[in-house]
């Protein structure tokens, strides 16, 4: 199985994702420069975190227009799994592969810490390795992670079971106290209708190593690898 990681100027979790993928996937991922529209044939595309273009104007706004993104959209439409983490999630909403948008945290501050999130659906190639309702711990690190969508979009998301992850309390309760950034309905991760694109604010690559506090993210990567190599 082969994965590509999209590298924009200002990406800074590209290496972290690379390391996490290398631990779970046999061949090393392709580090793909954003200017190059010729994306090789891959089984998975990851848009990593960081501050593409400094997050100037709006996080992800400028990177969403990189030459390679058109190709990413095309592949996504053909069914290739695309995972956007943090800034990657922001980029995927800016280029409309995912519904809604990510606004400034309501506390108006950057937040870096571990949060608890609940897996809301395991009906996806990304979350299939978790149990539905499973509580996992993952770090977040962002300025603009407050998920927003208009009412119509939101009900479509819910009706179609597209909410992948929600921030929750230590005992798995989804409530306002457990909401770190003001996201609507505590949404931390969202799927597209075809369920092959996932955007998430938490960083699975930061919890894929015992030495760094937790392995809950590893479950996601190993699940992805399994699902891609042995499709149902």
């Amino acid at each position: 199985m082969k994965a590509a990681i999209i590298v924009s100027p200002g990406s800074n979790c590209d290496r972290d994702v690379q390391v996490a993928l290398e631990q779970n996937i046999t061949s090393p991922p392709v580090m793909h420069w954003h200017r190059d529209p010729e994306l090789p044939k891959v089984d998975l595309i990851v848009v990593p975190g960081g501050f593409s273009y400094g997050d100037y104007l709006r996080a992800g706004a400028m990177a969403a227009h990189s030459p390679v993104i058109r190709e990413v959209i095309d592949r996504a439409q053909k069914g290739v799994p695309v995972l956007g983490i943090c800034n990657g999630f922001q980029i995927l909403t800016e280029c409309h592969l995912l519904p809604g948008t990510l606004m400034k945290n309501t506390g108006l501050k950057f937040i870096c810490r571990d949060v608890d999130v609940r897996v809301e659906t395991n009906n996806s190639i990304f979350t299939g390795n978790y149990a539905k309702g499973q509580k996992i711990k993952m770090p977040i690190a962002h300025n603009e992670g407050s998920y927003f969508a208009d009412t119509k979009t939101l009900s479509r998301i819910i009706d179609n079971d597209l909410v992948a992850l929600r921030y929750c309390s230590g005992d798995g309760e989804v409530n306002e106290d457990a909401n770190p950034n003001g996201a609507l309905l505590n949404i931390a991760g969202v799927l597209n209708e075809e369920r092959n694109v996932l955007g998430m604010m938490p960083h699975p690559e930061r919890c894929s190593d015992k030495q760094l506090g937790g392995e809950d993210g590893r479950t996601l990567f190993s699940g992805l690898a399994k699902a891609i190599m042995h499709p149902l």
Partner: protein
Amino acid sequence: MTKITPQIVAEHGLTEKEYKQVLKIMGRKPNITELGIFSVMWSEHCSYKSSKYWLKKLPTDAPWVICGPGENAGVIDIGDGKACVFKMESHNHPSFIEPYQGAATGVGGILRDVFTMGARPVANMNALRFGSPSHPKTKYLLGGVVSGIGGYGNCMGIPTVGGELEFDTSYNGNILVNAMTVGISEVDKIFYSAAAGIGNAVVYVGSKTGRDGIHGATMASEEFAEDTEGKRPTVQVGDPFTEKLLLEACLELMATDAIVAIQDMGAAGLTSSSVEMSDKGDVGIALDLDSVPMREEGMTPYEIMLSESQERMLMVLKPGSEQKAQAIFDKWELDFAVIGKVTDTKRLTLKWKGHTVSDIPVRPLVAEAPEYKRPYKPTPLPAPISPEDAVSLIKIDPMEALLSLLGSPDLCSRRWIWEQYDHMVMGDTVQRPGGDAAVIRIHGTSRALAITTDCTPRYCVADPIEGGRQAVSEAWRNLTAVGALPLAITDNMNFGNPEKPEIMGQFAGCIQGMAEACRYLDFPVVSGNVSLYNETNGVGIMPTPAIGGVGLIENIINSTTTFKFKSSGDTIILIGETLGHLGRSLLLRLIGEGERGAPPPVNLSAERRNGDFVRTLIQTNKVSACHDISDGGLLVTVAEMAIAGEIGAKLFQPKTETPDLAWFFGEDQARYVISTSDATPILEAAKLSGVNASIIGSTGGTMLSVENGNSISISKLRSHHDTWLDNFMSEA
């Protein structure tokens, strides 16, 4: 052309005597551009004229030191073909004027110092000092500084993993923002700044030059007057995104074989970079100022040379490699311009619109910079105060005292700060902020660097020598407490007006104490920075020699530990001698009637003996947790371990003559608290090594309690410890 009058000379911060020297070097009257160049090169900030004499007294050598002070950053050998490059630098005055941009550009500057040398930055630290929490500007300044540091470091994708925060009225008008960067490079791929190769191209890369911060370097060397806020020079604005591109582009170019020398443009921008490169290489540099990429129109040579626009570098390239270099900078969409060449004249010559606008002999510009041994007056030492006297007026239960200490501005959790810093990016943060030292894995290995910053200014102000010793010792101890072998330090000497003999007395004393400790602990100084004139209306800061220490952990799997209690039923052992020294302690500051007495004496041989003993225990996996004892003393230390591990502890009643409060809150040095499941061998080994070690209790339960005394739940301790800073910063 501006006429050089005595007034203009004075406005450039040059004394009459210094100006006479300029005339002698030039053999004629300088023009305004030349005067500007002399002025910034001879400012306190660039020339270290008041401090140089004393800095020479610091030990800078050890077998593992690759490059000591003098280059952009210090370099040490960390084995396996790798080197660690690090330095700390102040951005105090700019941060007071504009906290966000001041702090942000401070981080940007120190990052460039490290990657100029070929190292990829792997961690940032920040040592912060603000005025009293009740001072009207404190909240605004703290908020701005922290978001500025986060804004820059987070965007760069370099984790900010620790630091310090203190509040004291002495910083009301002069906050301290000291930023440290640690990087890693290959031992044989370190880049220096000495220009070489007559005819080689001098290349400018990075952002364009604007009128940013002209005279910043001279401003950083002047005492604040009341009206400073009115006549601010242009503040520099940081562009972390461009710096990230500059970092990647420089490292990409460094991986090829194109660079002869490279130097970041920091304070005094193009002037100091070109002067330093030519001086170090003992060559000349000729620049064509029309080729400098400019952001604004109509800039004069004076402005171009003195601009402090950020995110710029100067390089000397090998012949024929310009194209290759240009391609890399084009890819990263950065400016790249050949702006001059290396010459054999040993002069800095500047051309502009076809004319020579400056022609200065480089060697005397640098070597004949003023150096002062300013008059100094040693600080009169306070009378020590006995534990009995210290506690005689304090009637408080130890547990109650503990609660108010833990919830005080001095000791409360700094979580509010570090949650605004991405401290995990790069995927190697083994120990996050909160413990004794941050631990950063060396990428792709199981070895790690330990990093800390430390200083206790309230000790330094009472006894600079002891305070200097203590600052270095505490850094050494914090590294030891995570199992690291301390290797070297960087320092940031923050003091008041050096023209006052008392201030120079503090400076000289701190240096003496630091030098003794560095020597004794094999902990040399490899880089540093001096910030003087931290005074407003004649009121100076406490002497603050901030120390940044770096150590090496051999294996993160089995030869390091954290300060959290790990399991119930472990034995708690106190290492080191407890005399109950309360002079200058936090107990007196917060609960007694203010800081009094002498600071705790530092016994370097006990420091070394106890530290070596504890490190060996950690490295052989014999302890489950370790925390050094510093501010607040023994009970605070145990409480922090309990809070972090969410496990309680039962302490025995102290069996000593020392009053209880002194036993629990004394700040005697060279001490650690460890927990272990197997105490006996440790006690035996301690006896053999001549180390004081005694069992003081055990872990378990949900309470912290003292035998025959009171107890408090860990959750109550935690909520006290955890909330002060949040509440303070969220109150309008």
